[in-house]
C-alpha cells in the first residue's frame, strides 16, 4: 500500500562537522586563528539560516524481485544489482527526497559575483551538507516510525547515480513524489534545481 508524506520543514541542526570536513578541514593539521574561526562560523550560520530543509517520502510494497531488479507495487522496476541487493530482505521500499531550497544557492552565487569566493564556497558546502542532513534526518525519522510497527529500515540507503542505480530513476522519483510541491524542477540531464536536492531509497524489513 502506498503511504506518502510531505514534510514542509525538517528540523536539521547545522551539520558543522560535515561542512568542515567537506571543506577539507583536517582536525589534526589545520590551524585556524580565532578571527578565521569566527568569520567562517559566521558564514556557515548565515548560510544555514537561508536553508529551508524540506522533504517527502513514499512507501511502496515490493511485488517481485530478482538478482538484477526489484518490481514495485505500481509496476515500476528498479533496475540494478545495488538496489536488488539493498532490498533483498525488504517487504517495502521508501523513496525519499530532500531539498534545502533556492535561497542558499542564490546566496552562494551572489557571494561569488561579489568576489567573495571563500563565502561562496562555504555557502555551497553548507547547502550540500544540510541537504544530506535533511535526508539523514528523514531516514532516522522513518526508522523510528516503522519500528513502532515492528519493522526496521535497511542499514544503508542508495541514491540514484550511485552504484548501478541509474540517474534516470530521478524521473520516477520526481513524478511519483510530485517533487514540484517542494519547488524542485528536473532537467533533461536529471539535474535538480535547486541543485541542493537529493533523493534516495531505503528498504523496510
Amino acid at each position, binding site marked *: *500500500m502506498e*503511504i506518502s*508524506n510531505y*514534510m*514542509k*520543514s525538517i*528540523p536539521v*541542526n547545522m551539520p558543522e562537522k560535515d561542512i*568542515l570536513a567537506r*571543506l*577539507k*578541514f*583536517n582536525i589534526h*593539521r*589545520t*590551524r*585556524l*586563528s*580565532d*578571527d*578565521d*574561526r*569566527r*568569520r*567562517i*562560523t*559566521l*558564514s556557515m*550560520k548565515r548560510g*544555514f*539560516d537561508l536553508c529551508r530543509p524540506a522533504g517527502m517520502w513514499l512507501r511502496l510494497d515490493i511485488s517481485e524481485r530478482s538478482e538484477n531488479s526489484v518490481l514495485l507495487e505500481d509496476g515500476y522496476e528498479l533496475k540494478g544489482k545495488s538496489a536488488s541487493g539493498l532490498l533483498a*530482505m525488504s517487504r517495502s521500499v521508501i523513496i525519499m527526497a530532500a531539498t534545502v531550497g533556492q535561497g542558499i544557492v542564490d546566496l*552562494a552565487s551572489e557571494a*561569488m559575483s561579489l*568576489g*567573495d*569566493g*571563500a563565502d*561562496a*564556497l*562555504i555557502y*555551497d558546502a553548507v547547502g550540500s551538507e544540510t541537504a544530506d542532513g535533511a535526508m539523514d*534526518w528523514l531516514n532516522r525519522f522513518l526508522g*523510528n516510525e516503522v*519500528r*513502532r*510497527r*515492528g*519493522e*526496521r529500515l535497511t542499514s544503508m540507503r542508495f541514491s540514484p*547515480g550511485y552504484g548501478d542505480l541509474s*540517474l534516470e530513476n530521478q524521473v520516477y522519483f520526481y513524478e511519483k513524489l510530485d517533487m514540484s510541491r517542494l519547488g524542485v524542477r528536473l*532537467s*533533461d*540531464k*536529471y*539535474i535538480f*534545481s535547486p*541543485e541542493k536536492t537529493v533523493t534516495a531509497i531505503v528498504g523496510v*524489513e
Partner: protein
Amino acid sequence: MTREEFRKLIEQKLVILDGATGTELAKRGMPAGVAPELWSLEHPEAVMDLQRAYIEAGSDIVYTPTFGGTRFKLSNFGLVERLGEINRGLAEISKKAAGGRFVFGDLAPTGYFIEPFGEILFDEAVEVYTEQAKYLIEGGVDGFVIETMMDIQEARAALIAIRELCDLPVMVSMTYEADGRTLNGTDPVSALITLQSLGADAVGCNCSTGPESMIKVIRTMKEYATVPLLAKPNAGMPKLVDGKTVFEMGPEKFGSFVDEFIEAGANILGGCCGTTPEHIRSLAESAKGKAGRRPEVSSVSVLSSARKSVAMGIDRPFTVIGERINPTGKKAFQAELREGKTSMVQDFALDQQLNGAAVLDVNMGLSGIDEKGMMVKSVKVLSRSSELPLCIDSTKPEVVEAALRVYPGRALVNSISGEAERIEKTLPIAAKYGAMIIVLPLDDSGIPATAEERKGVVNRVFKEASKYGYGVNDIVVDGLVMTVSSDQSAAKTSLDLMEWASREMGFNTTCGLSNVSFGLPSRDQVNSSFLSMAMSRGATTAIANPASKKLMDTVTSCDALWGRDKNLLSYIGRFTGEEAVEIREEDKLSPEKMVFNSVIRGWDDRIEEYIDSALVSGIKAQAIVDDYLIPAITEVGDRFDRKEYFLPQLIMSADTMRKGFAVLEPLLKEDGPRESRGKVVIATVKGDIHDIGKNIVALMLRNYGFEVTDLGKDVDAEEILAGAEKAGASVIVLSALMTTTMVEMKTVIELSKTRGCSYRFMIGGAVVDQNYADEIGADGYSEDALQAVKLAGKLV
C-alpha cells in the same frame, strides 16, 4: 487522581507502566495499514484483553491507545469528525479494562513540527492537543502522558494544553536516539529543565533504545530533577530473524535492569517497542517492595534552550549574560529593527557566544516598533540559530508572555521588581512558563538608597514569588549597580546587597555591569575591577558585553582562582597560544611585509591599505607582486598542501590577492603588459548548472598569473571551442558534476580533435577522476583548485 496522589504513589513504590501497544494489538488481529485508533474503538475486546493482561502483569498505570488521536493524525484516515468519539470511547474502554488501576490519556507527536522549528503555529498545536485532551478527560482518564516526543516545542505545546485545561498529573516522555539526543537535537537535561519547570509531574524517556542506554539518560537527568523520572525502554534493538523483525531482549533480561534503573534515579518504569505483558510481569516482579529515589533537589538554577542547558551557582563557572541584543545606543540596529529585520540579532548572538557568553539577554525596547512582534520574531530566530538560553528583557507583561510562550526552553525573565505591575502581572506569567526571574530591588517608590532597604524589597518580592512555587534557586538578585561617577558609595551598596543575597539567602546574583563606570574614563578597567570584587563577594552572573577582552580575562582568571574551573581547563584554553602578542608585533612590520601577511591571513579588508602604504614608501608595483604577493600565495598553497590550511583559508587568501591585484593593475599597465603564464578558457559543460567549483578554479588561475576567460555554465561544445579560439587560449578547463553531464566533456574533446585543434584539456568535478580523463583523451585531471593551477602550469 490528583497531582498530590500521583506524587504519593511514586513515593510509596516503583510505579509500573504498561508495555507496547501497537505490536500487541497486531497480535490480537489488528491488520497493517488501518487507523489503529478506529480499529481499537471497533474492537474493544482486543484493547481490553491487552490492557487487562498488563494490569494482571503488574501495571499500575496503563495508557489509552490514542497515540494517533490528534486531528492531524486522524486526518490521514479521514477521521477528524470522529475525533471526540474515538478519544472519549478509548478512554472509557481503558477505564473499564483497568478495573480500578489508573488510566493515563496518551498524547503523542502530531507528525508536524511546531514553530520556531516548523510551520505549525505554536497556539495551533496547543489547540490540537487541547481538543484531544478534552475528550480524554470526558472519557475519565486519571492523568496524561505525553510520549515519544522528539520535538521539545511539541512537548511544551501538549503540556501547556493540559495545564490550561485541568490539574491532572502529567508525565512527559521524550525519545532519545543512540547519540543521547532527540532527533531534533534536544539533550535529556535541557528537556528535563524545560518540562519540569513548565509543570510536568514526571519527566523521562521512552522508545528508540533499550534499557542499557536509557539508564544512562536517567542518570544524567537525576542531578537536576525536581520531579520523578520515568523510563520506558524498548526490548533491546530490533533484529531481522528469518525475514521477521524481532526485539532480542526477553522478559527475564528486561526485568533484570530494575535495580540499575533505581540506582540511576528512575521512579517509574514500563516498556515500549517489542515489550509484552510478560516483560511487564518480569519488571513488576523485580520491582516488588522497591521504591525509586526521591528527587534530590526542589529547585534548580538551570536555564535551557532546545539544545543546551546552563547551570548557575556559586560553585559553577561564572555566567556572562550577553547584553548586546538591545537597541539602546545602537543606531544601525535600531534601523534594522524598524525594518522588521533580525540579521543583526543573529550576528550579535553569534559574536557573544564566540566571546564566551553563556546566556543571551534579548531586549526589543525601542519606540516606534512593535516590541511584542519583534521580541517574538527574535526569540524564534535565536531559538533556531543559537543554542544559548535566553533572558527575556522587557518591562511589558504582554511582551514577556508572548516571548515565554513561544520560547522552547526555560528562560530567565529580566526582571521582577517590587513595583505593583511586575508583581501582579509579570510574576504570574513568569511562573506559568516556569522561567527563572531576576529580582530588581526597587519598587513604586523608587530605588532604595541603602543595601538594607534593597534587601527589604528583595524579601518582599521573594515572598510573593514563593506563592507561585518559586524557590531560592529560581531567583537571581540584581545588585542594581549605579554609576560611581555620581555616587561613590554606589558600588559598595550593590556589593553589600549581592553578598547578602548570595551568602545569607543562597540566591544567584547579577548586575548590569557597565552601569558602574558610566561617565568615567577607562571604563573597561573599572568594569573589570568591579567584576572581580563582585565575584569575590558571591556574584554568580553579570549582564555584560563579552567582547571586552579584559572583562572575559577577569572572569576566566577569577573562575580559576575560585576553583570553579576544573583542572584550569578554561584558563589554559583561553590564555595558551594567545595571538595578541603576535598581532602587535606584526603592526610594527613594514607595509610590504603586511601585504605578504594579508595574503597569508586572508585579510581582504586590509590589503588595499597596506599596498597603498607600500607604494607611498617607494616600492614599485611590480616588486610588490613579485616579492610579496606571489611568494605569499605560494606559501598559502604550500600550507594547503600540508593540510595546515583548508579550503576557505585558501580561497580567503585568493580573494585577498585578487583585491591586491585590482589596486596594482593600473600601475602595472603603466609599466607595460603583465607577464602572462598563459591563456585559459574555463566552462561547465552543456546540461550542467553547477559552477562554484569552476569559479573557484578560475579565481585561483587568475591569481597565479593566467589569463582566464570564463565561459560560464551549461555551455555546449561549439561555444567552448569558439570561446577558446577567440581568447587565443591554449588550455581548456572543463567542469561537470553529474554522471549525465560528464559525457559532454568527451564531446568537446572529440569535436576539438575532429577539427584538428591543438587545445590541451584538463577536467575536474565530483564525478570525474584521472581514469576518466585518460578514457576521454583529456590531458589531465585535477582534484582541487590548487592542483588545477599546477596542472595548468604544465599544460600551457
